């Protein structure tokens, strides 16, 4: 299963194996062992673990021993895990008995467990606890009774709630009593006893309980009554209490039936516009009974806030019949209205909507036509024939919209039309629009090689300035043809084309650019572009998923081509990132250049640490780097300055790895050694060690290489 496992400290899976076969006494061997742990006076951690396991395999036989833990401050919560889970009356009885004896939080916990188990036999005991001196106990009892939800439990809660002023209005006890009643009422409602539920909700609404409980009861009272609850819903929407309105807006979404939509629609004019807009939003969230005609009316007249909400709603629930109205609104003089309508036209689902928009293009004026063109583009409506003529429209706004649309809908066959707009733009503004559209269209083409053919054909005939633009589009398209064209540009005599193409190649997203880049690293006109090409080649070696042999070969070639330490270090870093024996050999070779000697030594040490086995000849190869095979033991390590020293022995020990060079994680000693013990001061890492059994010490200045000196033979 690999990583698909639960390897946890308190896992019980192991104990489940073979633990399911029950003996005649009903216990499994595993359960007997666990009960024995509980009886043995074992450490608390072991008893906790036993409880956890008994939650899965424990039987009634485990209950007495678990019950004994209910009075333990540390283990009560562990014991209740199996006691909540073990079926049967034994666990119920144990919890009830404990509830008679315990107090404080331990009693609260036991009552909570009784509530979870919904033990009907506990009602009488819990009813008495409703008047417990400890408020938390009374609260827990009230909620537990609500969870049980039987007739007797509900009666006990009702009786307590009816004692006006006992407990105090708004107190936690009153809140819990109300919660218990609401829980019971919810059970009634889901069981189809709506009128009983409504009565109980009403009792809570009238009781001196906190406002949130009243709102919950009001919601329940509305839902339990169905259509008959609509007047109460409308009353809440008129409330001056913001929270009551909020609850009503939520409840309006829950209450089924068309009568709600009608009633809410009728009340809109009597509400402040801001609130009416929220009601419109609630109506929008009732898709089963939605009244589109109402939204259409609201969208056209009335307060702006309500209109905007209705227009937005049409975008979600509208259909083809709403398009004419929305198109009219999309060219409204009010920018907010027009923007909302355009957004909704873009959102409405359905191909019939597309047909409607398409049909409106013929004869549309210069105000509407750009809107329709943008919708064609946004919705990707197949309307190229209607879009192309608009490129020549007298109105600049229409032309710009046509360019945008074409970028979204043009196909390969008519891509040259868009290319032509790039090659011969009417003015600078349209040139930018055309560039953007061509890019968007080109990266969308299903056949990128065919697309690149079109673009490359245009490139061959274009001016130098346009060629640079087309190269960028080709770079975004990718593929073999695009790569060929861009590689050709990189070898051209034009500095701008060299610059653009070498940048594009340096960021190429597929590894097939590697040979091109390696060639350019030697042949590109000018050192700047050669270096850029080489770095692009190294990037491919670093970033792409490659077989190890191929990556190593690329690094070998890159090292041969690299003339500067910067690129040599980049190659060494690649080899360090992907450790291999051959890579280590290359690092050793690279390290012969003095300028990169420290990087090569660090890389070699890192690779050695990760390799399972380093061939003996390689130890000879890395020897000139100062690396030797070594069995190193760290005796002590401290890091700091003056009196401010910290013990970093364990941290350093973790980094020892087969050689005399130690690499710390992170950037710098402070990061690798768990913080800065002496800020602002020059620090030293002092290490006492043995290397192949020979004791030694070394003091390493902050952030210097950690190379343990090797005692010379003799």
């Amino acid at each position, binding site marked *: *299963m*690999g990583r*698909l496992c*639960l390897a*946890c*400290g*308190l*896992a019980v*899976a192991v104990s*489940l194996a073979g633990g*399911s076969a029950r003996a005649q006494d009903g216990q499994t061997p595993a359960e007997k062992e666990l009960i024995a742990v509980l009886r043995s006076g074992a450490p608390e951690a072991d008893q*906790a*673990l036993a409880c*956890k396991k008994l*939650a899965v395999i424990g039987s009634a036989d485990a209950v007495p021993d678990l019950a004994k833990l209910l009075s333990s401050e*540390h283990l*009560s*919560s562990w014991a*209740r*895990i199996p006691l909540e889970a073990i*079926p049967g009356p034994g666990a119920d009885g144990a919890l009830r008995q404990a509830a008679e004896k315990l107090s404080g939080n331990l009693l*609260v*916990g036991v009552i*909570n*467990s009784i509530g*979870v188990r919904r033990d009907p036999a506990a009602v009488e005991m819990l009813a008495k606890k409703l008047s417990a001196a400890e408020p938390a106990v009374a609260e827990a009892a009230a909620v537990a009774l609500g969870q049980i939800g039987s007739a007797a439990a509900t009666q006990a809660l009702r009786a307590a709630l009816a004692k006006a002023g006992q407990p105090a209005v708004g107190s936690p006890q009153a*809140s819990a009593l109300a*919660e218990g009643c609401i829980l019971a009422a919810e059970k009634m409602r889901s069981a189809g006893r709506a009128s009983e539920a409504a009565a109980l909700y009403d009792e809570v609404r009238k009781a001196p309980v906190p*406002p*949130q409980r009243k709102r919950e009861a009001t*919601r329940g009272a509305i839902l339990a009554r169905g259509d008959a609850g609509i007047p109460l819903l409308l009353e809440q929407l008129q409330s001056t209490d913001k929270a009551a309105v909020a609850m009503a807006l939520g409840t309006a*979404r829950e209450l089924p039936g068309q009568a709600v939509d009608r009633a809410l629609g009728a009340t809109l004019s009597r509400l402040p516009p801001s609130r009416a807009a929220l009601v419109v*939003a*609630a109506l929008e*969230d009732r898709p089963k009974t939605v009244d589109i005609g109402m939204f259409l009316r609201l969208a056209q007249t009335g307060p702006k806030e309500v209109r*905007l909400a209705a227009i*937005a709603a049409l*975008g979600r629930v509208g259909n083809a019949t709403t398009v004419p109205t929305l198109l009219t609104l999309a060219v409204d003089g009010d920018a907010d209205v027009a923007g*909302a309508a*355009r*957004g*909704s036209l873009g*959102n409405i689902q359905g191909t019939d909507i597309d047909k409607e928009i398409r049909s409106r293009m013929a004869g549309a004026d210069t105000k509407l036509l750009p809107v329709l063109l943008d919708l064609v583009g*946004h*919705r*990707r*409506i197949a309307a190229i024939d209607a879009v192309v003529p608009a490129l020549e429209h007298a109105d600049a706004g229409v032309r710009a919209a046509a360019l945008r649309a074409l970028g*979204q809908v043009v196909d390969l066959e008519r891509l040259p039309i868009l290319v032509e707009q790039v090659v011969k733009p009417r003015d600078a503004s349209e040139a930018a629009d055309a560039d953007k559209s061509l890019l968007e269209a080109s990266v*969308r*083409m*299903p056949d*990128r090689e065919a697309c690149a053919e079109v673009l490359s054909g245009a490139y061959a005939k274009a001016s130098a300035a346009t060629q640079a633009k087309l190269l960028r589009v080709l770079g*975004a398209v990718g593929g073999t043809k695009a790569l060929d064209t861009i590689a050709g540009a990189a070898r051209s005599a034009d500095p701008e084309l060299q610059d653009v193409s070498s940048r594009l190649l340096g960021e190429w*997203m*597929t*590894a*097939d650019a*590697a040979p091109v880049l390696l060639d350019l690293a030697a042949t590109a006109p000018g050192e700047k572009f050669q270096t850029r090409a080489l770095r692009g080649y190294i990037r491919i070696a670093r970033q792409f*998923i*490659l077989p190890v042999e191929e990556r190593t070969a690329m690094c070998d070639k890159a090292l041969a081509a690299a003339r500067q330490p910067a690129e040599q270090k980049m190659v060494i870093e690649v080899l360090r990132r992907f450790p291999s024996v051959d890579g280590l050999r290359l690092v050793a070779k690279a390290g012969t250049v003095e300028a990169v000697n420290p990087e090569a030594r660090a890389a070699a040490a890192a690779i050695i640490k990760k390799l399972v086995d380093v061939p003996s000849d390689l130890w000879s190869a890395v020897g000139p780097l100062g690396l030797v095979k070594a069995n190193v033991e760290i005796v002590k390590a401290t890091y700091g300055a003056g009196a401010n020293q910290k013990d970093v022995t364990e941290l350093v020990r973790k980094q020892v790895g087969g050689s005399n060079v130690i690499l710390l994680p992170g950037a710098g000693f402070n990061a690798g050694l768990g913080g800065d013990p002496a800020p602002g001061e020059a620090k030293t890492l002092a290490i006492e060690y043995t290397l192949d059994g020979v004791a030694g010490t070394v003091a390493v200045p902050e952030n210097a290489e950690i190379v343990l000196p090797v005692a010379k033979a003799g």
Partner: protein
Amino acid sequence: MVDRSSRLPRRGFLRAGLVSGAAAIAPVVIPGSALGLDGAVPPSERVVLGGIGIGGRGTYDLGCFLEQKDVQFAAVCDIKENRRVAVKKIADDRYGTQDCAMYRDFRELLDRNDIDAVLIATGPNWHSTAAMAAARAGKDMYCEKPCTKNIAQSLILKDTIRRTGRVFQAGTQRRNLPHFAFACELARTGRLGKMKRVYAHPAGMQAMTSGWLPAEPAPDRDVVDWDMYLGPAAWRPFNPKLLDGFNFEKGGGLVGGGVLEWGSHCVDLCQWAVKDCDPPVEYDAPKDGQLVARYADGVELIFREKDWIPLGSCPVRFEGEDGWVEAGDSGKLVLSSPALLAGRSVEEIDGYPATFHVRDFLDCVKTRGQPKGNADAACNAHIACHAANIALFLNRTVRYDNQKQEFVNDTEANRLRSEALREPWRM
């Protein structure tokens, strides 16, 4: 030369900014002015926010909230003094005041009538318990994931949110990223044909810390309140290694691991792709690096560790009879056919930012609509993850009845649906 990326149907990658997809994905329900999007927002229109358990992830989330002009962050609660102080500084620096209040006990924060909503970014141990306490206190909430520790918590959480009329947004921000949303839409709307399989990648399913470590001297309660840190988790002695809320209790049994850590995202997206239906009804034991679950209609939900197109973390894949789509955190999509793009364009956003998810939440706080990561949707995804965890744990097939909310004739599995909370905490 082998390069997997070169084998991708590159036409399937959607480019940034082709056409703004924002209008298609942003719920525009009330005027922007009312949502505080166009300038200064009067105090009466602001959502007053409190933060509970604001560590690393919480600080990121908080940053997304503080970007919104209609948010006033008023108070922070954390069991760690250094976090309280750090978050107060962030808020006070943002507003140029000293007004951000600090609490060690979140109940005091919830008692404040002026706070409308809370950001819950504690460790997973606390998420559902704190969320339900917030709901009972009448607060809306943005709750980080995994939201629940077991099936029972998932069921009770969604009931509680509904009963209390609260707006709940799980920290499943990928639901508000256009490319994931589009992928799910392709599946939901039948564009891929009849659905056959949805794939999730619950990476790294390994517990990292035992639930009980040797006792060490506990710091002063004002510095670290260990009792509040344990909260609903069964008692254990103080040990500083357990103070990493992300890993706390992962060793304690069926409380998460990678199945929940990542499944709460990627399984959640799979659930969205299958129209947020009930969770699968059957979960096989893991085999060959994958665990297969089946929905009632036969569609398979496959938890898979490998063989993903490299699209970044949290990949999902949806397969229908007519096509497939795969998406990941790089912001990119790969489609079986470019024709699937017809009619739509999708903005490419990488790095899975939570900004849009936070905005969705705030809009819904005002409209009382359902945000994308609402409790019903999130809890169904969590139930699927918990059930898969139980199949992993028992190493055998389990069958789940969504109506009865129990495993079918399976006592062992049923006992793993819930776990007692430490006193005095309750669901």
